[in-house]
């Protein structure tokens, strides 16, 4: 049985990749994918700990996260399409009309 530290380590690596991706990438789709990556790293941590402690609540959480992520993707992709529609670009550095 693979020790829980390994899962945790993988989860950290994935989360870091996702976070860095969100911060450094300019393509909105890629940023989106990075967010999914962070969510899934969290899911991984949940299930690994759930298994480690033989508790169900972590796994239940994961289901919720997957459901919410799906909803989020639906909204997010719709937003990206709408932005593209008006700006002809999905480069998030070009979208700064909220600047104060």
């Amino acid at each position, binding site marked *: 049985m693979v020790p829980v530290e390994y899962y945790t380590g993988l989860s950290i690596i994935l989360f870091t990749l996702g*976070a860095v991706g969100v911060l450094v990438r300019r393509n909105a789709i890629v940023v989106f994918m990075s967010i999914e990556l962070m969510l899934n790293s969290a899911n991984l941590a949940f299930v690994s700990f759930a298994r480690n402690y033989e508790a169900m609540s972590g796994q239940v959480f994961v289901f919720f996260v997957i459901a919410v992520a799906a909803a989020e993707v639906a909204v997010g992709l719709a937003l990206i399409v709408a932005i593209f529609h008006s700006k002809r670009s999905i480069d*998030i550095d070009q979208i*700064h009309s909220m*600047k*104060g």
Partner: protein
Amino acid sequence: MFFQETLSQAPQFFGLVPWIVFFPVIGLLFNIAFGKKILERGPAGEKIVGWVASIASGLVFLVSVLLLVSLLGHPEGKTVPLAEWIKIGNFQVNWAFQVDTLSVVMMLAVSLVGTLIHIYAIGYMHEDVRHNGDPGRFGRFFVFMNLFIASMMILVSSDNFLMLYVGWEGVGLCSYLLIGFWYEKGEDGLGNALAGKKAMITTRIGDVGMLLALFVMFWAFGSLDFHTIFEKAPQVAQASPGIILAITLFMLVALTGKSAQLPLYVWLPDAMAGPTPVSALIHAATMVTAGVYLVARSADLYILAPQAQTAVALVGGATALFAATIAVGQFDIKKVLAYSTISQLGFMVAAVGMGAFVAGMFHLVTHAFFKALLFLSAGSVIQGVERGEHHLAHDPKLKKHAKSLGHEFDPQDMRNMGGLRTRMKTTFWVYLIGAIALSGLPPLAGFWSKDEILAEANQLNVAVYVLLTLAAVFTAFYMARQILMVFFGKPRSAAAEHAEESPPLMTIPLMILAALTVLGGVINLPEWHTLEHWIEHTLGAAVHKAEFVMLVAVLSTGLSLLAIVVGWWIYNARRYEAFWAEPAARRPDDPLRRLIGPLFDLWKNKYWVDELYWAVILNPYIALSRFLADVVDWRFWHDWFHDQVLVAGFNRLTGLLAVRIDLGIIDGIANGLGKLAQRAAATLRLAQTGFVRNYALSIFLGVVIILGYLLLR
């Protein structure tokens, strides 16, 4: 005995006494409400207005007679309360009428003379308002006259000093209103108004004395009721005689104002500016005697203060002689009578001052008769001359002659009269009766009362006796002078030549008064002493028994006759006409001047008392008030204190508040807050880049910091 018994069973009318005030008030209210409407009917309306007022006054006389009848049965009198007025703790003052033998004497005299004068005034004012060109004032005159009767009745019938004071001021007000009745006439169109003002202010000075007397009485006795005060007076006098002396001397001050005695008499001659019935009623017969009544009423106080009595007697005696001499040098028919009134008031004041209260009251009553008679006859003379003048001005043949008279004609100047004996027969005879009574020749009323005063003075105070006897001599002289100048000789002006007798409405009251003047003495003849016994019921022990002294009577009568003879010698028709025929430039204004020269000047100019008052009191007073008004009030208070200190200081303070405090601090804080918010916003907006990744980075950094803190703490 039987007579006494029937009287004591006689019906009592004491309850009617408030009507002596109510009747004239009803009369005046009627004339206020309907007078104007009624007067629009012309002469007939005047009759209605005048008779309403006269009947109101006549009803007062009727009530007074009923009270007299009641008193015959119950001479101790009665106090009739009407209403509670002031009640503070133990101190109480009521509206209450005191009916006793003293007050009823005053009521009878005032209402009888008042009624006759009211009736006379219907005729007199009919012409007076026409001569003066304002018929609308007819009603107002009678309203004032009724108001006067009401006030006088309050004065004489009150049972306490405060109510008496109300009447005292009420008659003063009526006097003021009636002196200034023709307020737009007189010197510079102001003279009459100024005369009214003078009367008001001068008597007001006296009234301060009255007020102070009231204060002292309240302080010393805790009451203002006659009854209480007179009862307690002997105890208080024993404990502290100064209090009684103070009260009586303050009352003397009040008396000198109201009864025109030295030194406050100066208003009375000027008061002749009022219509003649007013002079007769207020300034001769009734109001001016209020002071005499006051002393007689306060007899119980005066007998406890001999010094005050002496002071009152000396003031009266000095005034009697002083005014009598001035009357000799006057040319205005009413001014002579005015000074004569002051002189006769001096007789009364001297009498009550000496303690001869009955003699004073006796002279008050007879003087009311004969002086009212004289004044009303003088009014008749004046109007007769005015009618003559009017006749001249409207007769085409005589118009030229009237023009030659040129200057303004004075119908009151005795030098413009003469020879009226034949043109105004009735007036002449009644005037003669009044003059003889005033001169004190028997058997007219004036003789008995004057002689009683002289007899008392002879016994009580020799100095006053000498003063009064001299005054009586001068009285006879100036009356002789007046009669001879007015009625004898040839007319000295065209107006006098065409003078006409007055209508019966005026002459009938004159005849009644003449009858009273002839018979008035019977109320207190020697041996009978009717009035003395009558007043004894009220004043009790204070009444001094008067005795008829033959020597005094003969001496005074002889001296008066001598004065009349001297008067006739100087002013008889032949001599005076010869004097008058001399060129105007060479002859002096009066034949007497040739005989006594500067003394006549002194009398003609009234000892320059008015001028003295101007120089000593009025001018400094006016200068002081000017100084106060101009320098202190205007320059100091207004220009300096108000403008420089208050306004400038206020401006500076408000400037400070507005600029420094308001603009600087308050606005500064408000604006500073705004600026602060703006600046904070400008700074904070830099963080709002609009780049999503920046926000994400901040979130990460935040998470890292929080996590780092949680891990490392």
